[in-house]
C-alpha cells in the first residue's frame, strides 16, 4: 500500500509491541511494523525497507536507542525518530531531543503516541518538501549564474548591504574594465565620479533602492581606464525572508551609442530649429498635397500669415496670386506626373502674394525629400522685390543715361558740324579777299608797269607780303582747330626714332650752322605718332629758331620714365624768355618775341599743348632771358588714359 506507514520498531518486549500496535491501530492510520532487536537487523532494515517512522525503546539487551538514533541520523536524517520508553528521567528526555530525536513518548502515557507520531510525520513531511525546494532552488541558481556570467552586454553584479561588490560577471568586466579579483569588495562609488548631493550619487541610489526596492537611472559612469560613458543602471534591493537587507543586484548597460545618437539628433534638431528661426528667407515645408507643415518666422513676416494660420493650409492658395493659380497648378501637375519640372533644383522668380493682397517678386527654390507618403518639399523663398525695384530703377537710369549720351553726342556732332562750317567759312571767306588784294595789286603793277616809282613798287610789295602772311596765319589757325578734333590713334612709339626723324626733317633749317645735338635716353611712349611728331617738330624748330644768333647752338633732348608717365624735354641755349610771361607761351597767337626778329604764326606751342593735353599729359616751360629755354612735356603710360587705346 502506498499510503501505508512503514514503521521500524526497535523493541525487545513483545507486550510493548502489541501495546504500541494497538495504540496505532486505534488512530486508524494504516501501517506496517517491522521489529528489530539488534544493530545488524536495524541497519539491514534501514537499507532494505526504508521506514517512514522509527520508534525506538531506550534500553535493549543487545543494542541501545542513542546508538540507533545516531545511525538513523546518518542513514536517513529525514525519517522521524521517536523514543518510546518506559523509564526516562527528565535529563535523559532532554538529552534525546538534543541528540536529534523527533520526540519521546513514555509507555506509561502511551496515549501520547499517536499525537507524537502525527506531529513527527508532519514535521518530516515539511522538512522533505523544504529540502526538495532547496535543491530545486540551488539548481535554478546554478543555471542563472551561468546565464549571468555569460552576458557580455550587461554588467550584472551583486552588492552587499554596504554597497560593496560581491559578484562580478563577464559583462561587468567588459564594460568597466575591472577583473573580478580587482573589484570584489570595492564600493559602488568606484564607477562614479559624481559629487555627494547629486541625485545620482551612488549613496543616494543605494538608499533609494533600499527604500523603494528598485532604482533606475541614466548616469555617466567611469571605466577603469578613466573614460566616461553613459550607462543605464538598475539597482534592486535584495532582502532576507524576514525583510532584512541582504544586498543589491546591479544591472548596468552601456548606452553611449544611444546617447550619442540622441545627442546628434538633438543637435541636428536644434540646428534645424535655429536655422528655421533665424533664416531671413521664408522656409516652408509642404507635403505631397502642398499642405503647409512648417512655416518659419521669416515666412510669417514675409507673407503676414502666422504659423497657426498657415500650417495645414494649402500653399498655393496662400501665396500664389489668383491670376497665376492655373499656371502654377499646371506646372505642379506636370511635375508630379513627370517627376521633373522647372521648379525643382534651381531658383525661379515668381510673383507671390502677401496676406494683404500686395504682390511682390520672389526667388523660389524647392527641394524634394522622399517620404513614406510620397514626398515632402522644402520651399525657400527670398523676397527680391527691393532688388527688382532697384533693377528697374537701374534700368530706367541706364535708359536715361543712354538718352543723355545720345543727346550729348548729337549736340557734340552739331557743334562739330558748326565748327566745320566755321572752318570752311574761315578758309573760304577770309582767304578769298586776300587773293583779291593780291590779284588786284598784281594787275595794278602790270598796268602801271614802268611808270611805277621804286617807293610805290615797294608799297605794293608790302601789300602783297602782308596778304601772304595773313594767308599763313589763317592756314595755321585752321590746322589748329582741326587738331582738337582729329582722332587719336595711339600706339607704342619709339621716341628715339621719332626725334631722329624730326631732326632730319629740320636739318635744312640749320643749314650752315653749327649745332650740337645732345640726345639723351628716350623711353618708348604710348601716343599718336603723327601728332607726337608734330610736337617734336614744333619744339625742335623753335629751339633752332631761337638759337639762330648763337655762334654755337646746343640742343638737348631727353626723357625720364616714372611709374605713371614719361617726361621729355627739349633744351636750347637760345634767347630764352622772361619767365614772368611763361604762362602766355602756349596760347594761340601769343608771342614773346617780335615776328620781325623770329618769324612764326604764334600757333606752334598752342598746337604742342593741344596735342599733349589730348594725350592726357602736361606741358610747361622754363627759361631765362638770353640763357636758353627748356620745354617739357609728359605722356601717361599706356593704361589709364581715357582716349582710344588702339
Amino acid at each position: 500500500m502506498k499510503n501505508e506507514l512503514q514503521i521500524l520498531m526497535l523493541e525487545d518486549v513483545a507486550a510493548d509491541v502489541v501495546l504500541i500496535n494497538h495504540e496505532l491501530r486505534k488512530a486508524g492510520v494504516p501501517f506496517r511494523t517491522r521489529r528489530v532487536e539488534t544493530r545488524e537487523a536495524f541497519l539491514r532494515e534501514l537499507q532494505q525497507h526504508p521506514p517512514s517512522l522509527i520508534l525506538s525503546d531506550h534500553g535493549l539487551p543487545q543494542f541501545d536507542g542513542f546508538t540507533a538514533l545516531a545511525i538513523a541520523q546518518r542513514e536517513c536524517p529525514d525519517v522521524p525518530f521517536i523514543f518510546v520508553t518506559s523509564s526516562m528521567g527528565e535529563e535523559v528526555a532532554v538529552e534525546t531531543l538534543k541528540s536529534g530525536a523527533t520526540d519521546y513518548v513514555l509507555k506509561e502515557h502511551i496515549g501520547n503516541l499517536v499525537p507524537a507520531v502525527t506531529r513527527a510525520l508532519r514535521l518530516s513531511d515539511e522538512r522533505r518538501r523544504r529540502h526538495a525546494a532547496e535543491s530545486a532552488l540551488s539548481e535554478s541558481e546554478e543555471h542563472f549564474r551561468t546565464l549571468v556570467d555569460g552576458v557580455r552586454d550587461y554588467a550584472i553584479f551583486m552588492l552587499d548591504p554596504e554597497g560593496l561588490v560581491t559578484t562580478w560577471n563577464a559583462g561587468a568586466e567588459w564594460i568597466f574594465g575591472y577583473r573580478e579579483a580587482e573589484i570584489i569588495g570595492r564600493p559602488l562609488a568606484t564607477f562614479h565620479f559624481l559629487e555627494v548631493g547629486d541625485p545620482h550619487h551612488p549613496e543616494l541610489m543605494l538608499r533609494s533602492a533600499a527604500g523603494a526596492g528598485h532604482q533606475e537611472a541614466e548616469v555617466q559612469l567611469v571605466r577603469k581606464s578613466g573614460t566616461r560613458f553613459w550607462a543605464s543602471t538598475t539597482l534592486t534591493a535584495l532582502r532576507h525572508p524576514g525583510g532584512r537587507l541582504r544586498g543589491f543586484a546591479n544591472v548596468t548597460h552601456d548606452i553611449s551609442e544611444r546617447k550619442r545618437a540622441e545627442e546628434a539628433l538633438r543637435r541636428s534638431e536644434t540646428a534645424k530649429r535655429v536655422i528655421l528661426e533665424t533664416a531671413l528667407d521664408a522656409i516652408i515645408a509642404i507635403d505631397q498635397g502642398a499642405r503647409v507643415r512648417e512655416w518659419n518666422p521669416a515666412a510669417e513676416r514675409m507673407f503676414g500669415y502666422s504659423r497657426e494660420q498657415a500650417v495645414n493650409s494649402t500653399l498655393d492658395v496662400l501665396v500664389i496670386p489668383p491670376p497665376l493659380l492655373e499656371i502654377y497648378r499646371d506646372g505642379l501637375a506636370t511635375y508630379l506626373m513627370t517627376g521633373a519640372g522647372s521648379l525643382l533644383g534651381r531658383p525661379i522668380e515668381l510673383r507671390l502674394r502677401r496676406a494683404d493682397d500686395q504682390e511682390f517678386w520672389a526667388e523660389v527654390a524647392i527641394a524634394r525629400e522622399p517620404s513614406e507618403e510620397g514626398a515632402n518639399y522644402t520651399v525657400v523663398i527670398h523676397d527680391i522685390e527691393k532688388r527688382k525695384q532697384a533693377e528697374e530703377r537701374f534700368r530706367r537710369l541706364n535708359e536715361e543715361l543712354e538718352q543723355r549720351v545720345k543727346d550729348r553726342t548729337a549736340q557734340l556732332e552739331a557743334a562739330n558740324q558748326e565748327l566745320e562750317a566755321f572752318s570752311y567759312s574761315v578758309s573760304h571767306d577770309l582767304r578769298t579777299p586776300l587773293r583779291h588784294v593780291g590779284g588786284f595789286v598784281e594787275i595794278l603793277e602790270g598796268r602801271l608797269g614802268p611808270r611805277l616809282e621804286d617807293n610805290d613798287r615797294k608799297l605794293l610789295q608790302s601789300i602783297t607780303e602782308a596778304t601772304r602772311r595773313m594767308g599763313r596765319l589763317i592756314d595755321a589757325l585752321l590746322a589748329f582747330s582741326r587738331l582738337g578734333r582729329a582722332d587719336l590713334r595711339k600706339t607704342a612709339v619709339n621716341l628715339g626714332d621719332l626725334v631722329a626723324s624730326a631732326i632730319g626733317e629740320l636739318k635744312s633749317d640749320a643749314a650752315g650752322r653749327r649745332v650740337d645735338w645732345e640726345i639723351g635716353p628716350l623711353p618708348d611712349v604710348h601716343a599718336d605718332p603723327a601728332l607726337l611728331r608734330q610736337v617734336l617738330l614744333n619744339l625742335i624748330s623753335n629751339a633752332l629758331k631761337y638759337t639762330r644768333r648763337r655762334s654755337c647752338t646746343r640742343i638737348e633732348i631727353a626723357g625720364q620714365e616714372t611709374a605713371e608717365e614719361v617726361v621729355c624735354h627739349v633744351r636750347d641755349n637760345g634767347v630764352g624768355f622772361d619767365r614772368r610771361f611763361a604762362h602766355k607761351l602756349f596760347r594761340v597767337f601769343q608771342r614773346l618775341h617780335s615776328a620781325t626778329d623770329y618769324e612764326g604764326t604764334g600757333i606752334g606751342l598752342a598746337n604742342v599743348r593741344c596735342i599733349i593735353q589730348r594725350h592726357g599729359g602736361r606741358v610747361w616751360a622754363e627759361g631765362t632771358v638770353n640763357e636758353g629755354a627748356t620745354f617739357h612735356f609728359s605722356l601717361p603710360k599706356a593704361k589709364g588714359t581715357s582716349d582710344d587705346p588702339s
Partner: protein
Amino acid sequence: MTRLNRILVVDDDENDLQLTVSELERSGNATSIDVARDGMEALLFLRKHAAPAGRRPGPPDIVLLDLHMPCVDGLEVLREMRRDAALRDIPVVVFTSSPNEVDVRRSYELGANAYVVKPMDYGRFGEVVRQIRSFWIEHNVPPPVAGSRAASLSAAT
C-alpha cells in the same frame, strides 16, 4: 576762219570774276568770255544758247563753275545741265575755293569734268586760270554737238 572759242565763267564773287576774266583775256585772243553772277543766270544763259539761232552762237566750249553761290548754287547748275540733252555734253570745270571732300565727290557724281581749287596766292591763281584755258580750249577736243559748231568744224575741214 578761226573759230571763236567761247567760255562761260559762273561766279557770284565780283572780284574773283573780275580776276578770272582778266587772266583769261590776258592769256589768249580768240576767246569770247561770257559771265554769269549766279546759278540762275547761268542756266538761263545756257538754255538760251543751247543751239545756235541766227546770229546767236551756240553753247560755250567750257563752263568755269563756282560752287557756293546764293539761290541756285553750282551743284544745281551742274545737275540741271546733265539732265538737259542739249547741255549734257558741255565740259564743266568746277572752280571753287572749297577743298571740301564732300563738294569734290558731289561734283564728280553730278558729272563735273574737273575740279580745281582756287589757289590762295594770286600768282598761282593766275597760273591755274591760264592752264585751265590752255587745256580745255587749246588741247581738249570737245564732243561734237548739233548746230553751228558742228557745221563750222565740217566747214573747216
